[in-house]
């Protein structure tokens, strides 16, 4: 049901974009106005979100420790699971952000027919998530070809690696297949894993369908309904140089693609997709496990009512005397 809601939203958006792309007067809106607007919303929204997070302090150092602490020299430490220095934290964060360290730990819990609990390694979610995020990044970097003139060498190299399997003309790009496969896996997991389906919100499907729509239209343009790349580049360069032009001869499918990208950008700061920024700010991961060595300061550490020794001695005075424990006040 929730998946259906999300599917309908994306279908309606795509349909509307297809119709609009057929109307000449609407093309400047799809090609120029909305992309600018979406980018503005994305940037302002993300900045606002990160500033809002950062406005609250981190009152305690609540590292989730996943390995041996640094204590006695003869015990083997695990600096990337229990970082003690700033660089070790950088290392831990790099593993988390670049390689999804925590997801790599994933297990599947099963109660066997003999009523034993078994924990099987389950790396599929890790592999799917990693495949999606990395191919998405490569695809975004590949798109720089459209926005930059001359095209940076790095982009060319990336493309040749991506096109390693020279299977077709135009060159088949590995990431195109990987991102669709990964998204379909993530979608299938949401739909068919009973527990994940139970916790999934419409918003969770929405992100997947949007991304699938974007990837789908992008691939279609490259391999099937080819669009005039020179015109697309003209449009893209116009957008980044703030001298927008709307060339003739760009197919309707391009506008659907661009519109869905605009929607994704505008939606981003108001959705769970902000995890892109939040992962850097997670206090259980981005702090060292050096609590007892270096004091962490809490800016709002307000006074609280306490029961002082003097009050305690007064309350238990007679009992302290009777059992012979020393008193501060005779």
């Amino acid at each position: 049901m929730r998946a259906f809601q999300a599917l309908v939203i994306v279908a309606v958006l795509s349909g509307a974009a297809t119709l609009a792309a057929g109307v000449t007067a609407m093309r400047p809106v799809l090609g120029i106005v909305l992309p600018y607007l979406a980018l503005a919303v994305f940037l302002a929204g993300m900045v606002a979100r990160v500033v809002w997070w950062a406005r609250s302090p981190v009152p305690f150092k609540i590292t989730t420790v996943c390995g041996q602490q640094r204590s006695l020299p003869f015990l083997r430490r695990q600096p990337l699971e229990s970082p003690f220095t700033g660089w070790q934290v950088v290392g831990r964060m790099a593993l988390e952000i670049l390689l999804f360290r925590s997801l790599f730990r994933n297990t599947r819990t099963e109660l066997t027919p003999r009523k034993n609990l078994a924990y099987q390694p389950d790396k599929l979610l890790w592999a799917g998530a990693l495949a999606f995020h990395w191919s998405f990044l490569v695809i975004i970097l590949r798109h720089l070809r459209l926005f930059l003139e001359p095209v940076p060498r790095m982009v060319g190299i990336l493309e040749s690696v991506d096109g390693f399997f020279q299977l077709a003309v135009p060159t088949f790009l590995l990431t195109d297949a990987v991102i669709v496969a990964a998204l379909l896996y993530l979608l299938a997991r949401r739909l068919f894993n009973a527990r994940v389906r139970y916790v999934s919100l419409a918003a969770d499907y929405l992100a997947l369908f949007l991304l699938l729509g974007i990837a789908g239209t992008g691939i279609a343009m490259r391999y099937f309904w080819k669009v005039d790349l020179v015109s697309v580049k003209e449009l893209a360069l116009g957008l980044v140089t703030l001298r927008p032009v709307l060339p003739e001869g760009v197919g309707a499918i391009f506008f659907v693609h661009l519109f869905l990208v605009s929607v994704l950008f505008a939606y981003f700061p108001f959705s769970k997709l902000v995890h892109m920024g939040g992962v850097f700010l997670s206090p259980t991961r981005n702090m060292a496990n050096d609590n007892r060595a270096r004091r962490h300061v809490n800016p709002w550490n307000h006074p609280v009512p306490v029961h002082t020794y003097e009050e305690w001695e007064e309350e238990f005075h007679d009992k302290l005397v009777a059992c012979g424990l020393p008193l501060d006040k005779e």
Partner: protein
Amino acid sequence: MKKTPQELLQIEYRPPRREWMDPHVDFEARRGTWSYPAAPKNLEYLGLPNPREWSPTDEDWKLPDDWKEIVHKGFLDLLDRFRSLKVFMDCCVRCGACSDKCHFFIGSGDPKNMPVLRAELLRSVYRKDFTTAGKILGSVAGGRELTLEVIKEWYYYFYQCTECRRCSVFCPYGIDTAEITMMARELLNLLGVNINWVVEPVANCHRTGNHLGIQPHTFKDNIEFLCEELEDVTGIHIEPPINKKGAEILFIVPSADYFADPGIYTFMGYLLLFEHLGLDYTLSAYASEGGNFGLFLSHDTIKRLNYKMYAEAKRLGVKWILGGECGHMWRVVHQYMDTLNGPAGFLEVPRSPITGTVFDNAASTKMVHICEFTADLIHHGKLKLDPSRNDGWKVTFHDSCNPARGMGLLEEPRYILRHVLNELYEMPENTIREQTFCCGGGAGLGNDENMEMRMRGGLPRANAVRHVHEKHGVNILSCICAIDRAVLPTLMEYWVPEVRVAGVHEMVGNALVMEGEKERTTNLRGEPLPGKEA
């Protein structure tokens, strides 16, 4: 416990048809899985809101008239003070990696015990009240209206989390359900919706100095009694100093260690160790609690109870503090104490008077874990040990949640155990170290009315113990946590009755060869040593 293990094991992991956004909880039907509310006298003593007699099974929970506004304002206040809450509310993608990592989910199959959903209970209200999308789109954007039923649901599920942080290990964003539960309990606390098993120990500790409400004369009596027992076993007479000014080290233990079986044997182990070393230390009848149930109520109560440690160290003029075997105590000492009640400039950087080792990992907080202290002693060959005295025990080690995931104290206890006994077997790797499973009774849930949930929550731990029991004949579960020692015996009795529970320093005490001791014929429990049976 009315239900048999076989009945309890009929667990349905497939989620029900009913959508989770429906908050209804049938407290009457679910007796055995929730804890009784706080008695008004305890809330009154602490000056906490809304003391009254009530029961979760009542229709009317007697909340303040403006309860909704209180929660709304309280939520805003927490968002202002804790970046963690903001980030954890916004970043979850519901990937489900955590969904089968919670011991309460594994033991009950209740979908709201999946960490992701436990957080969604709070997150849904956050979205509705504080986010643009949630305000406009409501339930489509995952928003949910805050109703009285939601408060009741929060009470049920946020007092069905032991703040063990296992899920946080697996979360790609490190979302920590303990943090979320702590926030939810702060909010509930504003309405006077909390449980007695948390609030009474807090009130006791505030007044007498320890959770059990033991007054100074009884404190002294208990310790003297344990010393007599110890003398029977070893022939050594010990008089531990109490409230002694000018001692070098203040030693603080969880109160259960000088009160209840099997913690008392661990306490005897500490005493023997210090006697063995001739250590200049003191106990305190005022700071007579290592644990801190304030952690399970609010950040303010953490600070209120923890205050006594530094205050007493300063009053007695000690150089540094040594802490006993306790789980959540060490989460507070390691991650909260210095921030809340430090800096402790009046203390010195801890240095072992026996080995000269400087504990620079505790340079600021100035408090050392007894396992760090003892491991260092063993490494320097300062202890005379006879591991064969523990030969009756086939041991496995249970990492307590907080020392494991709160501080990374994983190798120290193992190092000690390997030197004081001969047979140590590890449980399967997904159930120990940073992936260790909770005892099922942490965070104030170790009470008797909550027994069914305790047995369910403890199932993953017990199941792993049964595995090593069947494979290696393990007959004792060693741990470094007073709550473990209080609740694991019941858990073992239910799931693996052949296995008993002990602290690490009980094993140390058994193995220590004391100068001038009589021939040992029994262990600290008074049971015959192997080969010494009459």
